[in-house]
């Protein structure tokens, strides 16, 4: 496909690897933020092609993985109401709640529908006026415009039977939290290209200055990722730390102003909890008070929390993995008690979860388990 195949060119990949190998004279640790990048790195084996001096750490960039267990439980409770059609992206369905997941709730009769876009959920609400249609609005900044747009559409068209259960996360506060952590070893970041397509990259400039880390805005194809790595290595070697846009065909500094305006109209920042990591100040979005009527947790506030199960499976070290402190192979359960069919933690569920990526592309690590 145009604008994809060109960036998978073998000769360019080889050249970039050689260039990075020659440039890196000492060890460097770089974190890719986005799960899509993690997936591409493991799929194409880029981590194995890079020299031993360049270590890639995998970041928290998978919203499916960081949605708190309480929110999953709330989703299951709402979905189990008789008059509800619960719409969600497909990869949320197998994420373990404290007792079950959305897929098992569906097997028991809950109306859970997989949709491609929040806008499809609004259309379902228009076609089913006697049902309460709820969309599970999870995501990073990339998905926030679509979620805001769904509210905009429902608001303008007077669709009263539509609401969203919000679990919206913001990337820069999480990067700041990682950098200020006691165990942090991250010296540079590959910023998530599609988050930046929406938000631009001005938010990253203060991070570079405060923590003295280079940040390369990076795309998702092998050549894109290696360009991001090369940019970071070059900066680390020369002692500079700036935001370098290596995904200029998609990202500009200010971002998509229409999308940002739409997000700001319907959402406001809030301190929220990331599964496995904990509370991070101003790291999420919630609906503004004037749009409370579209908030499913408000509309279904009569449902009492019933999360009596364990907060997280005891063997699961997802929190440490999502912060780049451990890798999936460091987990006792990886590939044995925990696999995509029977996940203990969310990073094994989503196709972009780091444990799932290791499971699918590193067969040698699971042999004998």
């Amino acid at each position: 496909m145009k604008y994809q195949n060109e960036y998978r060119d073998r000769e360019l990949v080889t050249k970039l690897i050689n260039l990075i190998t020659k440039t890196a004279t000492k060890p460097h640790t770089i974190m890719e933020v986005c799960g899509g990048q993690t997936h591409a790195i493991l799929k194409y084996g880029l981590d194995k092609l890079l020299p031993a001096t360049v270590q890639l750490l995998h970041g928290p960039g998978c919203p499916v993985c960081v949605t708190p267990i309480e929110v999953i439980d709330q989703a299951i409770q709402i979905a189990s109401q008789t008059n509800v059609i619960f719409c969600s992206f497909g990869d949320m369905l197998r994420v373990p709640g404290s007792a079950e997941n959305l897929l098992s709730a569906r097997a028991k009769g809950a109306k859970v529908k997989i949709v491609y876009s929040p806008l499809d959920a609004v259309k379902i609400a228009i076609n089913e006026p006697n049902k309460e249609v709820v969309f599970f609005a999870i995501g990073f900044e990339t998905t926030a415009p679509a979620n805001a747009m769904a509210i905009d559409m429902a608001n303008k068209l007077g669709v009263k039977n539509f609401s969203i259960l919000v679990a919206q996360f913001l990337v820069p506060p999480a990067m700041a939290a990682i950098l200020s952590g006691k165990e942090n070893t991250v010296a540079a970041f590959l910023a998530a290209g599609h988050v930046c397509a929406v938000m631009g990259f001005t938010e990253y400039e203060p991070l570079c200055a405060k923590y003295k880390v280079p940040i390369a805005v990076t795309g998702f194809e092998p050549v894109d990722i290696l360009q991001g790595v090369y940019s970071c290595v070059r900066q680390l070697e020369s002692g500079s730390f700036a935001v370098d846009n290596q995904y200029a065909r998609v990202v500009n500094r200010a971002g998509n102003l229409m999308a940002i305006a739409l997000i700001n109209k319907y959402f406001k920042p809030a301190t929220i909890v990331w599964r496995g990591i904990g509370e991070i100040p101003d790291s999420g979005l919630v609906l503004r008070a004037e749009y409370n009527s579209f908030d499913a947790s408000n509309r279904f506030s009569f449902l009492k929390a019933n999360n009596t199960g364990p907060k997280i499976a005891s063997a699961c070290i997802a929190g440490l993995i999502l912060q780049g402190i451990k890798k999936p192979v460091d987990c006792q359960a990886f590939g044995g008690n925990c696999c995509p069919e029977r996940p203990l933690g969310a990073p094994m569920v989503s196709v972009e979860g780091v444990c799932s990526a290791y499971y699918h592309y590193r067969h040698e690590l699971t042999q004998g388990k």
Partner: protein
Amino acid sequence: MCLGIPGEVIEITEDAGFLQAVVNFGGIKKTVSLMCTPEVKLGDYVLVHVGVAISVIDKAEADRIYSYLDEINELEDQEQS
């Protein structure tokens, strides 16, 4: 999750006052919202995420891929000299 796919805009339409486009992704056609990219013209490539075009692909920047090889060779020459 933040998957974005580039595709070519082949038709611009409207639904209930909301601007949208038919986008061709290597043969698969889908209707997507243009609410965040109203400047789009026929033949443009857009980056689509969950049914919304979030960015118009900058053709000049994208075409730089064809000169990367020369750029890298030049960098290597500089290092060797």
